[in-house]
């Protein structure tokens, strides 16, 4: 019987609260514009007024929220200071990008409703201005012809058209600019573009600056008009609406006076905007600190290892940094997981060469050259971070399952190294009592740099007489005839022919059902952390297994699933 509450409960609660606030704001502001103050406005445009203002309120709320999940340094700080908080709360901070996307979709949705409603508003205002006969719409539109401050209809002449008005008012222009920025941001953020052409996504995303500027000045023109409070007292719409032909001539019904609402959006977004500016300043300042490359190692299967030093650099296991190499590109920052342990005197990253930037970095670091490189020839680097991700939590569980697919093993390299150092130093504070490590790999070349680490750990455990502390399995998910022949010949040997480790390499994919069942059986009643760094498909599978094998009973075994993402 699965226990999804343990894994998903808090996230679902957060989403429900957020949706609830959206619905509340929508309904509340819809009703605000049904008030008497807007009676005459609604005579001209009908319900389109409420339909435009309600999503506007939701847009204020969501635009306030959208900047917060991408303040990496702020979130890292919260995570760090939340060590005393429950693990569950800090896990929510891992899902910041998912939340950012959800809020973005909501912004797009409300923008659509807002624009469609305003299309009707513009059309109806125009119709009112074009009225020939003396209808109430005509009379209302004529108000304010002398002095422009008390008008109702923002379209002041009948010799224009809605398109022209849209592009000559502050509200119209800023609206169009913001919407265009939003559309370009969204189309360049599609998964296909993001995963393949990161630079297009990253640079276009900076159009959000235009979006926010447009948003803040959008209401400056104050074109949404309602009756002034004093005017409602003298010209009550319920009494005077029918007598529109006699306004001003009858003492009961003077000509109504209108005013606009002052812009409100800046009050919602100013806080997060300040926080975000601060965030970028922190990133900039951190990046200016001097970073020295102390060692460059080229590994097979196109992997580059960089060992670096920076004054005052402190890290936790499994964190990542953003790297910039000004000689390669002035503007690009790319995230990489740290593969070194906090106990070491340097920090390192393993970079796979997959695109433009990584290729140029490889060449700049002399990857092509065979001979020794002088230290001063190596390029200057800038480092932002480190930023916390799920792996920090590894040491908070008694039993952990670590699953790394291909290059996704890198955060766990950091974890295992840290474990090795703590063992070496006889650290009694080491909480995990048992580590299950799974490495899924397609090709044998990728083993090389990691196999050494596993070998040291293996020896270490044997010496301490605690060979059971770390149980690891390596799965070769792609194999061919030649390799199979090699395996069969060496099948009986003590050490694995590929890795040289005592633990044999296994083939195909792991049977997760069995693995979870066995581990659950070995550790009844324990809280088991499941950590994955790998593809989405595997994440879904492991997440499902975690839920299925967790006991409904709170005293039973619980698998808590944590996924890395970038």
């Amino acid at each position, binding site marked *: 019987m699965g226990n999804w509450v343990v894994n998903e409960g808090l996230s679902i609660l957060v989403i429900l609260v957020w949706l609830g606030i959206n619905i509340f704001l929508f309904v509340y502001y819809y009703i605000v514009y049904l008030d008497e103050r807007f009676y005459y406005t609604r005579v001209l445009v009908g319900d389109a007024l409420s339909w435009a203002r309600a999503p506007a309120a939701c847009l204020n709320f969501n635009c306030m929220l959208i900047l917060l999940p991408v303040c990496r340094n702020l979130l890292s700080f919260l995570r760090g200071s939340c060590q005393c908080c429950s693990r569950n709360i800090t896990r929510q901070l891992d899902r910041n990008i998912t939340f950012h996307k959800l809020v973005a979709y909501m912004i797009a949705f409300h923008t*659509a409703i807002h624009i469609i409603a305003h299309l009707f508003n513009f059309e109806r205002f125009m119709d009112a201005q074009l009225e020939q006969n003396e209808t109430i719409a005509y009379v209302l539109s004529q108000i304010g012809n002398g002095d422009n401050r008390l008008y109702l209809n923002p379209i002041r002449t009948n010799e224009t058209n809605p*398109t022209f008005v849209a592009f000559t008012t502050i509200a119209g222009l800023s609206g169009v600019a913001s919407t265009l920025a939003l559309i*370009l941001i969204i189309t360049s953020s599609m998964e296909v573009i993001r995963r393949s*052409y990161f630079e*297009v996504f990253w640079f276009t995303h900076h159009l959000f600056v235009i979006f926010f500027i447009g948003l803040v000045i959008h209401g400056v023109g104050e074109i949404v008009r309602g009756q002034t409070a004093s005017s409602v007292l003298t010209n009550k719409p319920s009494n005077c609406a029918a007598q529109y032909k006699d306004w001003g001539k009858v003492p009961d019904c003077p000509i109504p006076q209108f005013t606009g609402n002052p812009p409100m959006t800046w009050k919602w977004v100013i806080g997060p905007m300040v926080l975000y500016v601060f965030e970028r300043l922190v990133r900039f300042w951190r990046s200016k600190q001097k970073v020295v490359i102390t060692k460059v190692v080229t590994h097979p299967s196109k992997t580059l290892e960089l060992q670096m030093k920076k004054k005052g650099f402190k890290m936790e296991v499994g964190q990542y940094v953003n790297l910039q190499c000004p000689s390669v590109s002035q503007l690009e920052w790319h995230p990489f997981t740290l593969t070194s342990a906090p106990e070491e005197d340097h920090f390192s990253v393993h970079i796979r060469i997959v695109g*433009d930037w990584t290729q140029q970095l490889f060449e700049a670091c002399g990857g092509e050259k065979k001979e020794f490189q002088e230290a001063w020839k190596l390029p200057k680097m800038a480092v932002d971070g480190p930023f916390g991700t799920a792996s920090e939590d590894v040491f908070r569980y008694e039993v952990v399952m670590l699953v790394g697919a291909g290059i996704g093993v890198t955060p766990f390299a950091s974890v295992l190294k840290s474990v090795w150092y703590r063992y070496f130093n006889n650290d009694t504070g080491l909480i995990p009592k048992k580590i299950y490590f799974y490495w899924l790999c397609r090709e044998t070349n990728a083993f090389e740099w990691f196999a050494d680490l596993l070998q040291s750990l293996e020896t270490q455990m044997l010496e301490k007489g605690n060979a059971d502390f770390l149980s690891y399995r390596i799965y070769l998910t792609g194999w061919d005839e030649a390799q199979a022949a090699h395996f069969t010949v060496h099948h009986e040997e003590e050490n694995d022919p590929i890795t040289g480790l005592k633990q044999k390499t296994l083939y*195909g994919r792991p*049977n997760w059902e069995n693995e979870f069942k066995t581990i659950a059986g070995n550790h009844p009643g324990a809280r088991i952390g499941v950590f994955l760094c790998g593809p989405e498909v595997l994440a879904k599978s492991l997440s499902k297994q975690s839920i299925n094998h967790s006991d409904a009973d709170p005293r039973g075994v619980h698998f808590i699933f944590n996924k890395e993402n970038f």
Partner: protein
Amino acid sequence: MGQIEWAMWANEQALAAGLILLTGGVVGVAGQFKDWQFAAYGVAAGVFICLLEYPRGKRKKGTSIERTGQRYLTVCVKAFGPLTRNYYVRAGLHAVLSVPGGFMLPTVLGCVCVAIASLIYLLAAIRGEQWEPIMPRVESKERPGQSMKEPPSNPPPRPPAELRRKRQEDAAYVNPIPISVNSV
């Protein structure tokens, strides 16, 4: 930025623009706005652009991911040969299609978005990109054991007979005749 295929982004932008033009057109027609004829045009043009842009082209490098159910449209789009393959033609087509949208407010946004898509396609064309259809893959020979639900947990190939010897402790039963390397 050497490896970017601009056409991929142009395609996303054009598809979005088609939808926006279509929505604007629907609003203009349903709301019976003045100059609703331009809105009706917006509906038609929007639908056409969506159909044209829905099938994703094949990437020069890397895996191409199809949109759901795009296979049928791929066949249609492919049938126009150079008209749909060449991105200069597409850029020009989108530029022309966008113009009537600028005459009424509901379709103005669609007009600008299609124009932007046209510009990105122009950039793609200058860089020499082309639209290639994603054809269905020829099913490769099934790997042994693919039909099994569970992955094998033992090494797939067995050692050759001469190296295969039963270990005493593993045997489920004890052979009356001891097995040696030369026994058959």
